[in-house]
């Protein structure tokens, strides 16, 4: 009996070792670039899953892209023209693009893709409403719109990746179509497999890519359900880099990663940020003096140290960060409790009962209804302390995102913490307007400004492509933000992307970070 149990143990141990060796001895002849992410894929749908769409930047590129300076440049589009009244857009498609099944990319593919999004897409339905006519003339695609659109290039830089007509026209509802792959693509790579169980997407080199040849044969993007495991994977050398849409590598994990000696950091300013928004039509924050007092009460240097561990800077009053095209310098936000108290006092707010909190017009202590998304709980607690020091009370309600959306849409708050994304910052009239324009509701936007001055400014920006006018409007907009404070940025942050220092050629743009064609055609080992 004892001999049998010992024999069982030996057999089990040998079996286990055999398994461990077998799975580690996979022939790794292909050159594979490995990326860790926490943006998980929920369904194998190229056009229907949010994060798959983001990762498809390298296989099914958009018509335009953003360069590292934040300027919109062509990607599938070589050049384009816009009619003087901004209703006819003509795109000239690059002639050297080929799908991974050898067929050339044509104007038909572009026309099909755009109209498909207009018909079936969730976020692209507005295209179906806006486009009245589509013409294809060789590699030229001409879209006629039902009204002036001045920023189609911007819209086509953030989403609407191009798909091959000859493949997708056979599918009933493309946006709901699911398949593990392969998906035909025209980028330097095509999406070979979406393996939900293994937790990775595999991209393989497009054999018909005519641009700069990528060094790597394969790109594996592996998603983790928690950042700790992703960080550990990086530190152990299992991954070459880390990517998270609109976010940085966890700041707290940077030191540990750098201590391995195997990584370097690509640190770039981003237009994604956390900000404090106001319910502009509700007393007392409808009073500009209250907003100015709050702006002075916030300890920005401390937030830069605590929230982003020094990877960023104190923001300016004009809200828009330096990385954005159209940025103009406005005064930097200044932390001063004394100034905050003085503003309140000068505006007539007094602390009659000496309890440290000033009273409002109704004679009661001002206790602000502070709605916070649960991911910003720590910042909310800090801001509560800052406000209290300045004489303003607050009561925090920290809720999960969906509850936040509902409460925020019902204006059930005085102040709230929200975040911007790089894509969101360039939407609508750009420069963060989509977060404040009261005509755009839902999602992560506050729609808290209905001032005709602001709304007219947005409309003016949307009505022109004249660069000199746009420069003037950008200045006016940021001055408006500085004077009226519909939102106060807590910090301007840098997104940190760590990369294996044995690999060079990384390129980052403000919207999608390292997820762009320049990276995937440019990265290669350091010789």
């Amino acid at each position, binding site marked *: 009996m004892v001999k049998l149990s010992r024999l069982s143990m030996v057999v089990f141990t040998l079996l286990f070792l055999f398994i461990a060796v*077998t799975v580690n001895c996979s022939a790794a002849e292909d050159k594979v670039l490995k990326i860790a992410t926490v943006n998980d894929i929920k369904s194998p749908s190229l056009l229907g899953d949010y994060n798959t769409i983001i990762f498809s930047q390298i296989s099914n590129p958009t018509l335009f892209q953003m360069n590292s300076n934040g300027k919109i440049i062509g990607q599938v589009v070589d050049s384009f023209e816009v009619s003087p009244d901004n209703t006819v857009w003509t795109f000239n498609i690059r002639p050297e693009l080929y799908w991974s099944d050898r067929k050339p990319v044509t104007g038909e593919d572009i026309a099909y893709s755009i109209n498909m999004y207009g018909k079936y897409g969730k976020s692209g339905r507005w295209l179906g*409403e806006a486009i009245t006519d589509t013409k294809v003339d060789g590699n030229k695609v001409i879209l006629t719109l039902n009204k002036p659109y001045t920023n189609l290039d911007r819209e086509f830089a953030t989403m609407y990746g191009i798909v091959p007509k000859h493949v997708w026209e056979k599918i009933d509802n493309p946006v709901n179509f699911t398949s593990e792959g392969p998906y035909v693509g025209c980028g330097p790579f095509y999406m070979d497999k979406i393996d939900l169980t293994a937790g990775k997407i595999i991209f393989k080199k497009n054999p018909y890519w005519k641009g700069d040849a990528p060094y790597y044969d394969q790109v594996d993007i592996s998603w983790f359900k928690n950042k700790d495991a992703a960080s550990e994977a990086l530190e152990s050398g299992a991954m070459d880099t880390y990517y998270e849409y609109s976010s940085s590598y966890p700041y707290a994990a940077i030191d540990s990663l750098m201590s391995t000696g195997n990584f370097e950091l690509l640190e770039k300013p981003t237009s994604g940020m956390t900000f404090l928004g106001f319910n502009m039509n509700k007393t007392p924050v409808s009073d500009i003096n209250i907003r100015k007092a709050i702006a002075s009460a916030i300890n920005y240097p401390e937030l830069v140290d605590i929230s982003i561990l020094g990877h960023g800077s104190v923001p300016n009053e004009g809200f828009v960060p330096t990385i954005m095209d159209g940025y103009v310098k406005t005064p930097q936000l200044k932390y001063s409790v004394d100034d905050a108290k003085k503003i309140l006092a000068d505006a007539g707010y007094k602390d009659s009962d000496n309890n440290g909190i000033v009273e409002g017009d109704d004679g009661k202590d001002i206790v602000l209804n502070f709605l916070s998304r649960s991911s910003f709980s720590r910042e909310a607690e800090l801001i509560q302390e800052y406000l209290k020091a300045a004489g303003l009370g607050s009561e925090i309600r920290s809720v999960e995102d969906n509850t936040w959306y509902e409460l925020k849409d019902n204006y059930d708050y005085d102040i709230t913490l929200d975040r911007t994304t790089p894509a969101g910052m360039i939407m609508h009239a750009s420069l963060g307007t989509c977060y404040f324009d009261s005509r755009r509701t*839902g999602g992560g936007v506050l729609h808290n400004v209905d001032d005709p001055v602001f709304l007219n400014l947005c409309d003016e920006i949307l009505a022109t492509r004249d660069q000199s006018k746009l420069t003037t409007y950008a200045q006016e907009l940021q001055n408006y933000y500085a004077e009226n404070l519909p939102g106060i940025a807590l910090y301007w942050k840098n997104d940190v992307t760590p990369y294996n220092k044995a690999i060079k050629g990384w390129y980052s743009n403000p919207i999608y970070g390292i997820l762009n064609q320049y990276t995937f055609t440019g990265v290669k080992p350091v010789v």
Partner: protein
Amino acid sequence: MPEQTALLSWIIRKAIRYLISGFIVLVIVFLVPRLMPGDPVRNLVGEDVWLSPATLQALRSEMGLDLPLNEQFIHYLLDLFSLNLGYSYHLNGPVLNILLGRIPWTLLLIGTSILAGACFGVIAGALTGWNPERWWARTLTGSSLLISSIPPYILGLAFLACFSFYLHLFPIKGLYDTPDIFSIIYHLTLPVLVLTLFYASRNLLIMRGSVISERGLLYPQCARALGIPRQIILKRHVAKNALLPVLTLIALDFGFLFSGALFIEIVFSLQGMGSLIYDAILLRDIPVLTGSFLVISVFVILANLSVDLISVLIDPRVRMGRE
């Protein structure tokens, strides 16, 4: 005969009770996701994407969310009869297919852990309860106390850090690297080990306590007085009687099997039912929530029914209507 009739009558009464419970569950799993705050349509796109009111209305209509609740409920019941659990617009597929894609992995992960934890916990618990004064019994009991006091996700993180990160013995994530049996076993070893330890330690402590209680009764002492060896008394008499509380727990574990092990799935980045339900809650994916809750509820009801049946079959005291 009378005993058989009583048993049959008991089974029928229980079945009726569970059927009623089942219907109440149907209503609850239908209503709860729909009463949660948040808009499932908004969650179809990223938060930086703007949807026009017309688009929102069109999507709501496609998803059947513009119908009155009573109509939605009738559609829901009719669909259930044809085993149609609905369609998930967030995951782009029929809910039944989505669940069938996750359930086998959850079964593999948690089912294996429950079985292994049950076997080890029962056997070790019986031995430690029968010999509580021995040094190895004390060591096992102390270890079990320690492990059962640690939340599984902390245990999981510790194991991940130690065995995967520092010792590089196991992979850091996923159910497999390549879809073959060796890769699956390799990837699941650590999470199964963590869960097994969790279940085993809990089962050990309960079994141990139960055996100690039985040990103090007269019949083992009587058996000992008759000269029956201690190990035989434990195996044939005491363990059987002590097994009931643990059996109940194990049956309930199986009932909740399909709710997954969310924290373990997060720590080890596994695609199971736990993370499916968690994501569905965050996205307000009503069809997936309804389907998942229904599956879990059905299995919990079946598990409870099984526990009742097992109790009646193996414990004559329950059969005779006494404690």
